[in-house]
């Protein structure tokens, strides 16, 4: 399974970025191969509008099946849902800690956006 985690920097030791659409980076982690890859989200960070939608497109194209982040707004949630990506909110600490929390089942799967647009 490919997991995307919003992060303030590169790799597993980076701090989780609680924003989704305007997160600095996405750290992609493949639970089978243990491969880690960081992709820059600068394009969405600087978007005037639609950052969440663009970020959702980005991680969908990378084949992510699951997203770990702090919060997720309505347009992003709708786009992620249409791509079949499961959303886990409320993550904190490092990317590695967030992935461990997901694997231990301590993150709850979101069924709707937990914040308004542009929170």
């Amino acid at each position, binding site marked *: 399974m490919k997991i995307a985690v919003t992060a303030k920097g590169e790799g597993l030791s980076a701090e989780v970025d609680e924003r989704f659409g305007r997160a600095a980076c996405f750290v992609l982690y493949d639970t089978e191969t243990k491969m880690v890859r960081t992709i820059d989200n600068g394009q969405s960070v600087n978007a005037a*509008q*639609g950052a969440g*939608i663009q970020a*959702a*497109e980005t991680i969908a*194209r990378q084949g992510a099946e699951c997203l770990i982040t702090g919060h997720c707004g309505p347009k992003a949630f709708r*786009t992620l849902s*249409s791509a079949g990506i499961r959303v886990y909110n409320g993550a904190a600490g490092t990317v590695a800690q967030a992935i461990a929390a997901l694997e231990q089942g301590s993150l709850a799967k979101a069924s709707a956006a937990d914040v308004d647009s542009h929170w």
Partner: protein
Amino acid sequence: MTVAVASGKGGTGKTTVAVSLALSREEPALLLDCDVEEPNANLFLSPAIEDTLPVEMLVPEVDAARCTGCGACSRACRFHAIVSLGTEPLVFPELCHACGGCVLACPAGAIREVPLCIGVVERGRAGPLAFAQGRLDVGHAMAVPVIRALRSAVPPHGFTIIDAPPGTSCPVIASVHGADAVLLVTEPTPFGLNDLALAVGMVRALGLPFGVLINRSDIGDNAVRDYCAHEMIPLLMEIPEDRRVADAYSRGIPAIEAVPDLLPRFHELADRLSGLRAGRGAGVAG
């Protein structure tokens, strides 16, 4: 003669100036409030609205039966208003700029455009002054179609004054476009100067004759005057800080009614604006 009253910074007195300039005219005059996100000239004029026109924009609608999920629409849209991730596209009308690009890009002919009502144009009169304003509905973000609808529904008539929104973005450009002269209202503060310089860049790029009005001219510092002198920008009027103007503003009374001494000064302002227009192409715009 069409004068657009604009500013980089908000809250410098655009509406105060636009309303007073409109009320100072003896010939037929028209005020267009193009600040469609928050039109407020009506608070000072209490116009009688005679008709209301809906403003629609065209947004995509996808026929699921014909869509192949190829994603061409999604790649064509710079605004992420239509998104396909190998599935039937999601449409976000609030982000759509109504360019029709997705319709052209769709190889399956699965997208058609449908009207979405985003606001209104209201036309009326405030005594001898013709008045019109646009109002963007709450929850919509696209001011430009409302401004364009307002300007095409109400062509210039006599001395026409356009009250533009603040800033230098698309709604401002849609408001000042085609004006004979632009009056940039600022305040003599570092914030006023910073945003004035941005607005000057905008009107220069548009090639429009323009001049500056310094409101509350006896506060702050001299940097705006120095900037105008250095850039050879005509300083058309200064309005000193006056408690009577602020007091009247708080009660919806135009400055020119509260301080009748301003009337001849607004006549001079109109003459200077006409002069800018006459000097067009002769380097007056800097």
